[in-house]
């Protein structure tokens, strides 16, 4: 099975993970419709 991007959905969680990992966040605002 092909790998997929493991998108987070909560801003606070992503920022916290970014601080721990020393990585920036790729924030994708997508069309939900």
């Amino acid at each position, binding site marked *: 099975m092909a790998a997929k991007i*493991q998108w987070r959905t909560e801003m606070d969680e992503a920022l916290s993970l970014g601080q721990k990992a020393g990585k*920036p*966040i*790729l924030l*994708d*605002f*997508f069309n939900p419709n």
Partner: protein
Amino acid sequence: MDTVTYPESKVVRFIEENFIPLRIPSDSKPHSENFNVKWTPTLITLSPEAQEHHRTVGFLGPEELIPSLLLGLGKYHFENDRFDEALARLEQLVDGYAQSGSAPEAIFLCGVCRYKRSHDPKPLKDAYEKLSAVFPDSEWTKRAYPYRLL
């Protein structure tokens, strides 16, 4: 993006290695208002302190997304005065994705990073000369135009 770009294995690998990926619906408040999102897809490179460093609006195929993300990483480091790290990302873009839409800005920023490290103006002139030779019609060539006199 979901059908063409994000399923590409090289895109998955690049994003997972270099970013914490976060997806938010464009109608989700307050985030869409805080980031003034008006169209989708809007892709933003954010620092872990929620500082915006790079933004694109509209579809990007795999051959343009990776260099755009490298530009975002370069700007993330550049705007935090980490010029060696910025140069590494920007050179990766210029060397590996030389014809991408992100390449002219990367060439410009490479010149600025090298100047910031050395205070030698020659890299700025070099950047202008490379831009005028390879991307004569780019807005980044116009922005570098004064450096021809250095």
